[in-house]
C-alpha cells in the first residue's frame, strides 16, 4: 500500500509540469471548452439581460431588454429594465420622446424624454411598477437607461 501511494504521489507530481504547459499552450481552446461546457453567462445584473423587443423609429431603434428580477433561488421583488436607443446612422435625434411598455403587459408603463446632446433624461411613470431611474448609460453613439421597477409577479 505504501509503495502504491508513493508511486501515485510521484506520478501526480510528475504531471504538474505537463499540466502547467497544457494550461498555457491550450489556453484558448480550454477557455472555449470551459465556456461551452459550463454554459455560463455574465449575470444580467451587469449586462442588462437580453433584448426582448426592438421598436423601429426609422432613424433610430429602441431596444427593450428583459426585466431583470433574477435572484439566487427565486425572483426578487425589485429589479430594472434596460432600454437602449441605437441610431441607424451616425447620431441619434436631438430629442427622443417615447411611451414605452417595458414590463411587457401590452400597455405603456412610462414616458421618457431624452435629450441626446446633454444626456438629460426625464422619466414619468405611467404605472405603479415603474419606480424611477436606476442608471444612465452614455455610450459612444447609443444612449441607455436602466429603469427601476417592482416585480409585477410578486
Amino acid at each position, binding site marked *: 500500500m505504501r509503495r502504491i501511494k508513493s508511486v501515485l504521489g510521484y506520478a501526480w507530481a510528475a504531471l504538474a509540469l505537463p499540466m*502547467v504547459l497544457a494550461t498555457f499552450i491550450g*489556453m484558448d481552446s480550454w477557455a472555449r471548452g470551459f465556456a461551452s461546457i459550463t454554459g455560463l453567462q*455574465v449575470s444580467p445584473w451587469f449586462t442588462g439581460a437580453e433584448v426582448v423587443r426592438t421598436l423601429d423609429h426609422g432613424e433610430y431603434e429602441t431596444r427593450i431588454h428583459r426585466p431583470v428580477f433574477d435572484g439566487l433561488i427565486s425572483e426578487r421583488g425589485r429589479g430594472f429594465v434596460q432600454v437602449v436607443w441605437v441610431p441607424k446612422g451616425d447620431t441619434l435625434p436631438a430629442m427622443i420622446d417615447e411611451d414605452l411598455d417595458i414590463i411587457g403587459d401590452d400597455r405603456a408603463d412610462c414616458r421618457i424624454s431624452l435629450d441626446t446632446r446633454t444626456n438629460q433624461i426625464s422619466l414619468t411613470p405611467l404605472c405603479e411598477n415603474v419606480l424611477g431611474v436606476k442608471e444612465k448609460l452614455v*455610450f459612444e453613439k447609443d444612449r441607455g437607461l436602466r429603469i427601476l421597477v417592482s416585480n409585477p409577479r410578486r
Partner: protein
Amino acid sequence: MSTNSTAPSRARKIVKAALISLPMLLLSALMLSGGTSGEREMMQIIPVAVTFLFANALFFLMIYTGKTDKYRSLFFIVMAFCFILTFTTNLLERRGSLALTPEDMATGKTPFCHIVIPMTVIPAALTQTIIFPGSILGGFANISSMFVLWIGATLALGRGFCSWGCFFGGLDEFFSRLRKRRIIKDVDPRWTYLPYAVLLGVVLTAAASLTPTYCEWLCPYKAVTEFAAVTSVKTLIQTVIFISLFIALVIVLPLLMKRRAQCGLFCPFGAFQAFLNKVCAFEVKVNGEVCKEKCRLCTQECPSFSLSRESISNGGTRLSCMLCGKCVDICPHKAAGYHVKGTPVAARAGAARMLFIYPAYLFLVTFGGGMISGAIYRVLLLATTGSIFRA
C-alpha cells in the same frame, strides 16, 4: 591545496546546475515567445529577451545555490510591480480611464481577477451566471481564461499559486522584505482564521446580493489598479476603504511584521486556495527527527503564518502554506523540505524540490513573463517616443 580542489568542484557544480537548468531555458523560450517564430519588431523582441535572460539567470541561481525562496521572491516582486504598470497602461489605452464606469460594466470591459472566483461559485451553480461585469470569452483577461488558469494552477501547485502566480502578492512581499528587523514579533494565532471568516462573509454576501462584494467593498488592490469612478457618497466610501486597506494590509503591516499580512491574514482567495492545497501533489514537511524545535526560526519567518509549534510536531505546515520555500531555505538543520504527498518524509528531498520548482517556476515565468516584458516595452516606448501609450 584547498584552492586547487575547490575550483574543479565549483566548475562541476556550475556545469551540473547549467544542465539541470537547460530544460527550463528551452521551456521558457517556448512559453515567452508564445510558440511563434513570426517576425517581430525590435521593440517587442528586446523586452522578451530581457525577461527570458532575467528569468533563466534566477532559475540557474536557484539550482546552483539550492535556495528557492530568495530567487522566486525577486521574480515575484518584479512581476507585481510590472503588472501594475502593464495593467494600468493597458486599461488606459483600451478604456481611456482607470475608473470603472457603468458603461464599462454593462459592456463587459472589466478584466476578471482570480480573487473573485470563490464568490462566483454559488451563484454559478444555482443561476448559471457569473456575478462579475467581465466577458466570458474574448477581450482582456476574460472570465473563461482566468478560470482555466486557476484550475491549471490549482491542480499543479495548490496554494502555491499565491507565491508562484498571484500578481498582487508580490507587492505585499516587497514591503515585508524592506525592513531588516520586525517591530511586531508575535501575532495571536487566532488572527490566522480571519481569512476564512472573510471568505465565508464574502461568499455568503455575494450569493445573497449577486454582486462580488469583496471587489466592491474590501479589495485593497483596487487602490493600485482600477476602481469605481467616485460619483457618489457610496463610491467615495468604497475608495476610502480600498486605500485604507491597501496602506494597512499591503504596506504598513508587512513592514512591521515582515510577513505577508494581506495574504496571510485577510485574503479570501488565499483561504479558498488553502482548502485546495489538498488536490496538489506537493507540500512542505518538517522532519521531526532532524528538527529540534529549538530555534523556531521557521515559525517566526513563515510569511503566511503557516508554521507553528503544533504544526511542526505534526510534521509539517498548516493548510495555509503557500509553498514559497522560505522555511526550506532558512532552516539551519535542513529539517524543512518540499515533499511529494504519499511518499516517505525523508526520501528524495532533492527530487521532490525539483519536481515542484520546475512546474512552479515555469508557471511564474509564463504568467509573469508577459507582465515583465510588457512593462519593459512600455518603458522603451516612453524612452523612444516620449509616450507610454502606443500610437
